[in-house]
């Protein structure tokens, strides 16, 4: 696999990378385009970002998205990590079934998950709102966290923990000083995945949010449905920057910890 690529193949690869990134790059560029309707470039402007500041609904939706994402990330990370620990530590009746079952929510179409939650909430007459959104987000993030943490646990060197116990550490100390630091990158990766999944989710949120709990993706969706306008480019750019920042910070934390 060490010789240079055939030229034709190299062009295909370059083309695919272009396809993969050009749309978002164009979108970001157009958030600085002065033209309102046309796609022709008519000069650089920050007008659309300034316009965002005069839209209290966008700021509200952004704040709500962050609240929902952090709350459900916290819940899903704690619950998912516990599930992963239980599955990694013991083979017991039903453990394989449970592990397989964790993939069920992951492969279920979002539209089905969203609709079924909606009719459950309707059937037991729970009013839709921020609470139902957080409950739903925690539910779909939890299996992802569990799977990621479980993979880390399986690949982890358990002898260190056993050594700590043999050397006289009590279980809490061994967990806190040996197991947890070893597991931390897995938990962080799971939490980050949960955070971006929650921040990004449109489909499930759309069905369980109700009129009072408009997250940023739900708001962007309704703006897109009303028609393309430059402010959407600006909000979208902010959303891209936000998730990139989250990933960057996580990579930084992980890198600093490893160094």
């Amino acid at each position, binding site marked *: 696999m060490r010789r240079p*690529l055939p030229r034709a193949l190299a062009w295909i690869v370059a083309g*695919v990378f272009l396809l993969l990134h050009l749309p978002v790059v164009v979108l970001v560029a157009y958030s600085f385009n002065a033209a309102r309707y046309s796609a022709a470039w008519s000069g650089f402007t920050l007008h659309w970002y300034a316009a965002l500041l005069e839209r209290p609904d966008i700021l509200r939706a952004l704040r709500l998205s962050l609240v929902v994402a952090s709350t459900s990330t916290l819940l899903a990370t704690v619950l998912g990590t516990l599930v992963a620990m239980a599955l990694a530590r013991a083979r017991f009746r039903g453990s394989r079934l449970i592990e397989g079952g964790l993939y069920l929510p992951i492969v279920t179409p979002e539209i089905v998950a969203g609709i079924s939650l909606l009719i459950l909430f309707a059937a037991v007459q729970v009013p839709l709102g921020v609470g139902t959104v957080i409950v*739903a987000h925690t539910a779909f993030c939890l299996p992802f966290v569990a799977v990621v943490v479980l993979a880390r646990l399986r690949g982890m060197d358990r002898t260190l923990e056993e050594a700590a116990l043999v050397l006289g550490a009590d279980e809490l100390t061994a967990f806190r000083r040996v197991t947890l630091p070893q597991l931390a990158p897995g938990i962080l990766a799971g939490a980050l995945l949960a955070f971006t999944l929650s921040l990004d989710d449109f489909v499930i949120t759309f069905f369980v949010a109700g009129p009072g709990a408009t997250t940023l993706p739900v708001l962007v969706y309704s703006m897109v449905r009303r028609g393309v306008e430059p402010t959407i480019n600006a909000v979208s750019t902010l959303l891209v920057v936000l*998730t990139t920042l989250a990933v960057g910070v996580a990579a930084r934390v992980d890198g600093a910890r490893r160094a």
Partner: protein
Amino acid sequence: MTGLRRRLLGPLVRRPAAGSWALLTPGLLWLLLFFAVPLAVLLGYSVMQRGTYGGVAPGFTLEHYRRFSDPIYLSIVWRTLWIALATTVLCLLLGYPVAYAIARAGRWRAALLFLVILPFWTSFLVRTYAMIVLLRGSGVVNTLLAALGLTATPLELLYTPGAVLAGLVYGYLPFMILPIYASLERIDLDLLDAAEALGARGPARFRRVILPLSLPGVAAGSLLVFIPALGAFLTPDLLGGAKSMMLGNLVQNQFGPARNWPFGSAVSFALMGVVFVALLVWLRVRDAEERA
């Protein structure tokens, strides 16, 4: 104090099954209440009578499943299947060369991988919207074509099945590239040298050695693209028109404007059924490969 602490935290370190259940219960309960129970309710609704103003009325019936034989709905089922299949094939054709190139990219490997992973962290909604910006009548592509003098009037690119297909391929391509890359990267270089020493070069070496060894990645990638494509809702909703409705949109339509909840539930389960068939086929293929 130590005793209590030991009792509460013991399960985190020790192994017994009793402790495992203590750790499992909160998470499993959450999934049971907010994933499994809703699906059960949905299943129940799919065999009940239709309520007059939405909702359901008591009484068992299978009529909602029988409605699939109606040509209108049958055509949506077929469209969903072929769009999902076409998405998978296109992703494979575009993704395999990329995975192959990354696997042999040497010092550029990390950077190229980063470029493949980056879209994962970009909002799917934003990426779908970006396609609208490109494809709409006064969008970037049409403006470019007109400026180059290639078209006199804007092409109707948006709100077509083609636009849906483009959006899905664009959305799910990384899911195809990463598993193929993973399986190519694991190939033992000695095997390639051996193939070469034995006279297999270029195409023959690729066809007889590299391709078979990368098939598990191809199978995994195909599944990771096919399943979400089957359940697609947002992409056909924003990029498609009336003639590109998929099963996901039919579900939403039945719970929304059509107000036929039982039929919507039946469609949901048909969708789940197709997803499970795809999963089973994949498991079969994987097991056969492992035995081989």
